[in-house]
């Protein structure tokens, strides 16, 4: 049984100009101890899908799913109180902006302690001990002293380390990291990713990494989901994905990596992710796809078999290789 099992999850936001489908029937299944990356441009619904799992979406969002279970428990059936025990306890999440994700009015120690007292039975002194231990485990120097620091006294990298310490405080079985390195300096990015993978291996927890950076995917993930305009357009293991992408979007994302570029100019994907008002007919990627024909513009593409990366495409790429 997978740790997190989600089928046909859709999220719709009620906006002033009508409903907006941010996540369009996506499936996830994450096993214990597995590292899954969700890749896509801004606006492809990666974060929204995960926030839906956490139950952190605003009331304007409508979440529907055929199946939404953590460790066999249906998340939608749980009472608010029971769901809060899962969220923060068994599932933890860290966010893109570490500097604004910590409450400026409370000390680091207070904020870690709070997570511990919400989900564990530790005494006050044990919680303090555990907080120090956590800060040390995420590589913060002088952890005792840092407990009384306020968030504004920390750098971005330090804040993200504190966020990670807080998220792993109750030894979650699943950690969702929503673009954890996007707001950080390049040198710090690698450190934070290493830290996340180390902690993941050490505690045997599952890790879902949301990112738009294919480089990050290559370094960390085992399995990859490529998301575009709220849909999952490809699902593959990381080696297969980099070797033989099947969806033209995945292929275009890989071509845009500086390391893999061949010409003088870095190839870019023309246009932007369709928004609320300009969702095309047929395949959502067709306006930006170099291979699109009239079928793509009119007929919704089928889901290809696993051998073709479950690509959501009429004409998946690298078919010859698979056949051979």
């Amino acid at each position, binding site marked *: 049984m997978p740790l997190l099992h989600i089928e046909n999850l859709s999220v719709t936001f009620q906006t002033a100009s009508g409903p907006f489908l941010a996540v369009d029937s996506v499936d996830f299944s994450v096993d214990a101890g597995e590292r899954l990356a969700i890749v896509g441009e801004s606006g492809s619904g990666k974060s929204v899908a995960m926030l839906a799992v*956490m139950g*952190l979406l605003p009331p304007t969002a409508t979440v529907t799913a055929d199946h939404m279970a953590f460790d066999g428990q249906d998340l939608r059936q749980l009472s*608010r109180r029971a769901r*809060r*025990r*899962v*969220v*923060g*306890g068994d599932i*933890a*999440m860290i*966010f893109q*902006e570490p500097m*604004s*994700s*910590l*409450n*400026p*009015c*409370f000390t680091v120690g207070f904020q870690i302690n*709070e*997570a511990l007292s*919400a*989900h564990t039975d530790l005494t006050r002194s044990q919680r303090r001990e555990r907080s120090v231990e956590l800060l040390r485990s995420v590589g913060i120097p002088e952890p005792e002293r840092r407990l009384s620091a*306020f968030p*504004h*006294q920390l750098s971005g990298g330090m804040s993200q380390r504190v*966020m990670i310490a*807080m*998220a792993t405080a109750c030894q979650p079985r699943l950690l969702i990291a929503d673009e954890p390195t996007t707001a950080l300096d390049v040198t710090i990015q690698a450190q934070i990713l290493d830290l996340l993978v180390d902690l993941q291996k050490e505690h045997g927890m599952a890790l879902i990494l949301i990112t738009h950076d294919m480089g990050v995917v290559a370094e960390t993930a085992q399995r990859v989901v490529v998301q575009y305009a709220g849909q999952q357009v490809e699902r593959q293991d990381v080696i297969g994905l980099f070797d033989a992408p099947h969806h033209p979007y995945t292929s275009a994302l890989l071509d845009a990596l500086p390391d893999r570029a061949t010409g003088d100019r870095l190839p870019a994907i023309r246009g932007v992710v369709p928004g609320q008002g300009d969702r095309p007919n047929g395949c959502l990627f067709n306006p930006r796809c170099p291979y699109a024909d009239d079928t793509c513009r009119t007929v919704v593409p089928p889901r290809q078999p696993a051998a073709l990366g479950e690509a959501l495409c009429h004409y998946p790429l690298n078919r010859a290789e698979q056949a051979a």
Partner: protein
Amino acid sequence: MLRFLFVRIGLLVPTFIGITIAAFGFVRLLPGDPVLLLAGEHGVSPERHAELMHQLGFDRPIWVQYFDFLWSVLQGDLGRSLVTHRPVLAEFSTLFPATLELSVCAIIIATVVGIPIGVIAAMKRGTWVDQSVMGAALVGYSMPIFWWGLLLIIFFSGVLHWTPVSGRISLLYYFPAHTGFMLIDSLLSGQKGAFVSAVSHLVLPAIVLATIPLAVIARQTRSAMLEVLGEDYVRTARAKGLSQARVVGLHALRNALIPVVTTIGLQVGVMMAGAILTETIFSWPGVGKWMVDSIFRRDYPAVQGGLLMIAVIIMFVNLIVDLLYGLINPRIRHTR
């Protein structure tokens, strides 16, 4: 923080000088003079008028009078009332506890009611709860104080006979003023019913005086909460699996209070202006009513002394609020 404190206190000096000029100037801009008003309907001969003006020192050049006033003020002397001949400072000190009691009760009502109302409105944003609460706040804010006070008197005192119309306590009770605060003195006196009488006298004027600050605090709390509820750290708090009460009441409210405290501080000035009207309507024997009476009598020393005292009090309240601000906002505490 220390540097911040010194700069902040240093700024009080020019403010104080400005206040003395304003207090001294305003009352002299009013038409008429104290001698004419003392003489009343009988009038006074020009010679006698000049003689009296000379006696009171009002015939000297205006800047000589001002520096004379400033010099006395610096020595802690606000002069004597032209009407009662008692020292202005003594009169002010006798009456001020009544105003303070009224204002403190009003600010407590405004804060204790206003903040929760603002939080509820923010939580129920866009619903009928939000709209009716904010509509009521707008009405409260727009209602002229004297009109609102009269409406309450007519209804609660006139129709329902629940509360007395005016004064601080029923004439049945007499006890020495230990603190000047009727609520405390009535309790200390141990007389049966005295405290209840004091409360029933206080409740209407306190509500009237609290109305505008309450509306302002509720609106400010609502908008601050709405802003804060969208912040990343509120999402983090929810992601930790904390209860709604803790997320809203601690994580969000603590941050939302920062601008609200500033607002409450600014309302103290509004209260003093409100106290003048409220005290007049309810015959509340405080400095507000005394100031109005003194203005009508062109009691120059009383008006300028009273204005100065009120301004200085507001100045210090704002200083305290600024210092409090550092306490509730760690970012200020550390960066200065």
